[in-house]
């Protein structure tokens, strides 16, 4: 990755603990996950590549072994929150983005 530009996406409260929310940043839909159980934040594309649905932020998050993941609410394709790789279908992959939390604000690096 080259130079990252940080965009303020929302406040910490806007994303439910152990859930996700979607931010509109520069015309892009970014899913942001507050993985409170681990004290981690993740961000990915909001679009699931399987049926091009804008829904990943509404998916359930969790873990597969040590791998943090999100499940698309449509057909339960699951994706690694770290690498973006689809865990139950090699064909698919989503983009992941760096997240920075500072003074109750959530920033996404694009």
């Amino acid at each position, binding site marked *: 990755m080259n130079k990252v530009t940080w965009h303020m*996406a*929302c406040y910490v409260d*806007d*994303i*439910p*603990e*152990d*859930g996700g*929310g*979607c*931010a*509109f*940043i520069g015309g892009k*839909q970014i899913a*942001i996950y507050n*993985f409170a*159980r*681990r004290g981690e934040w993740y961000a990915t594309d909001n*679009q699931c590549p399987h*049926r*091009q*649905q*804008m*829904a990943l932020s*509404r*998916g*359930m*998050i*969790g*873990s*597969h*072994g040590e791998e*943090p*993941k999100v*499940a698309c*609410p*449509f057909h*339960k394709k*699951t994706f690694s929150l770290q690498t973006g790789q689809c865990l139950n279908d090699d064909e698919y992959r989503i983009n992941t983005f760096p997240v920075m939390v500072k003074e109750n604000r959530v920033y996404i690096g694009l």
Partner: protein
Amino acid sequence: MKAVSNTRIVVVGNGMVGYKFCEKLLSRKKDGQDFTITVFGEEPRAAYDRVHLSEFFAGKTADDLSMAGVEWYAENGIRLFLSDPVVDIDREEKLVRSHHGHIVYYDYLIMATGSGAFVPSIPGVEKDGVFVYRTIEDLELIQSYAKKARKGAVIGGGLLGLEAAKALLDLGLEEAHVVEFAPRLMPRQIDEAGSRMLQSQLESLGLQIHLSKSTQEIKGEDRIEGMQFADNSSLDVDMLVISAGIRPRDEVAKIAGLETHPRGGIVVNNQLQTSDPFIFAIGECALAHHMIYGLIAPGYEMADVVATMLTGGEKEFLPYDMSTKLKLIGTDVASFGDPFVEEPACRTIRYENKAKGIYKRINVSTDGKTLLGGILVGEAEQYNMLLQTCKNKTILPPDSEDLILGSRGGEEAGAGVMSLPDDALICSCEAVTKGMICHEVGENGHHTVDALKKCCKAGTGCGGCIPMVKDLIAGVMKEKGVYVRNVVCEHFDYSRQELLDLVKMNGLRTYGAVLDHHGKGDGCEVCKPLVASLLASLWNENILEKDRAVAQDSNDRYLANIQKGGTYSVVPRIPGGEITPEKLIVIGQVAQKYNLYTKITGGQRIDLFGAHLGDLPEIWEELINAGFESGHAYGKSLRTVKSCVGSTWCRFGVQDSVSFAIEVEDRYKGLRSPHKLKSAVSGCVRECAEAQSKDFGIIATEKGWNLFVCGNGGAKPQHAQLLASDVDKETCLRLIDRFLMFYIKTADPLTRTATWLNKMEGGMNYLKAVVVDDVLGIAEELERDMQNLIDVYKCEWREVVESPELRKRFTHFVNTPIKDPSITFADMREQKRATEWA
């Protein structure tokens, strides 16, 4: 038998058995053993599946039917000569000579020449338009000739003959006749009553059957024009397929001076050696135990016997069970053991159902203890069990008719597949026993049919044993693996039922608490909704409060059904399907205002589609203000209680079904369960509400109400069964309380009541004993638990509408109030629809 290094093997014949021999020899080959294998085949194609030859007409190609391509032979170092039959064997020099002049020396020679069609010597068989039914080439010839033919006949009413006749119809002939010399069809498998049943099934498909007919002459100039029979009748046809049996291909064996039987077949001993100890014969060319085994399973067994011996093992070919089950043009036909033994040598039990085209016969030993054999026509589900019962001489239950009729009251007959001995042969084609399958499942972790096919080849032959293989997998898992597959997921090492008990005992009310106390890791899309459902079933608190919202599945998360494109649909509750004009108008106004597609559902309510996530709270606010409640169409919970109009209007109605339906729906609304629940109340026996297809259904009688449970529509329809009859309303509700609570407490996740009952040991009798007779002494507790849930019910949408905190989550974006710009619709019949998946 001593195996020398680099043994030269020549296989004469490349049919299914010849191929299987090569495969078995390679797989049984031990370190240090080396074989040079040469195969000669007469046909231009490598071995293909002749058993399913008729599927060639159904669109299967030669490739589909192929056992293994020519590459397979090359990869395994086997020299394969096709279109090149062996014409001479020099036993002195131990060499064979082929049609094309190839000379190959052998240490062992395997005759696998199979059989050809038996063509009776009827004057005129040489005419154009007369065919046999044996190879793909034969079928291609038939196919092309059929284009200009109108009427066809088949000589031979055996399996192949009947398949050939059906093929003629499928090829577009106007008439297809079957001419059989014997007084019945499939004379080697079934008796006359079975034949009559089969005949009526086949006639309903358009075949014309002529029994006890001996063909005397085939008429016509150069090409067939008709058939003349011995009884002076005749039949005009312009093509004929002869399928009158098989004739072992023993010509080359004869030339070589091997012993053959006057009626055909190369004589072999129990080791399948011919009169020359270096020459073996296997498959349909071999005459073992004084008979030709014209089935694939014994052929494979023969291949295995010889392969075993040539690789240094010991095995002999024993008289083989000729039981068989076939799917004959859509009709099951099976026979096993001794199908024809007659009284007084046995007791025969027959069942005949002409309306359904079912005939069953079993022959039981005179002491009533063992099964000797039987015949099944029209329905052969019990074949595998009966065959095993017969082969293993299992002691029969006192009412042996239960074997074919099923149990009529009392416990189910037999103890199922797990009661078989370990050496019971499950897959006859590949000689796989119950013990081997159980070992693979239990010890080696092969838990699926596909895995078993790979590791032990079970089910790869005719496929008839697959249902039994599945039962064995389930049985072993239950016995050994126990909870291995039944635990929730990697995060919870418990079954749903165990987890429910733990959560209840510890009074846990959030997903996080359940995970901390009883689980590990961070949860997933399997355990989250499951635990969320348990919490709702136990406490009935709002499913979006505390940490529960993010543990809900797609629909419960936003209390609406997610649809294609990412919008949601809204279903207000309309109890019993009764609605006032005022409320109808409100639904219409809401639909207009938010531009929603409207449709009447199957459950007598109205679904509003295409709502943006952000609009849901406002839509519901308007609906709630008009007196609506959540319909829980999004939940694994009570959906609707459908009703017919009943005695208030209907001239046939005997009770007020609508009032009762509303009462039932109001009682159980919002109840979360392992899967969705549907119900209905009918006002009379005409059953217009279709209560017998519901999880619980009520039908009015003159004296009260009949309660049915565990019905299902959907993918696998199942009729509900009677739990109680002529009960009053109070009793009916009490029984439903117990029934539903028992289901909620014991069912596996995402299991409908019908499946739950099907898996329940003891079935309906047990369920009745628990719910009606209270044999477990839990009825009071079940009723109390249900009453607690009913007492704390609140409309969850009202709670969301009234809570700013919950409402806040209903937005697509967290940083702007705009709606999802990617959502688009298309027009259809003056409404909108979701745009198609990309």
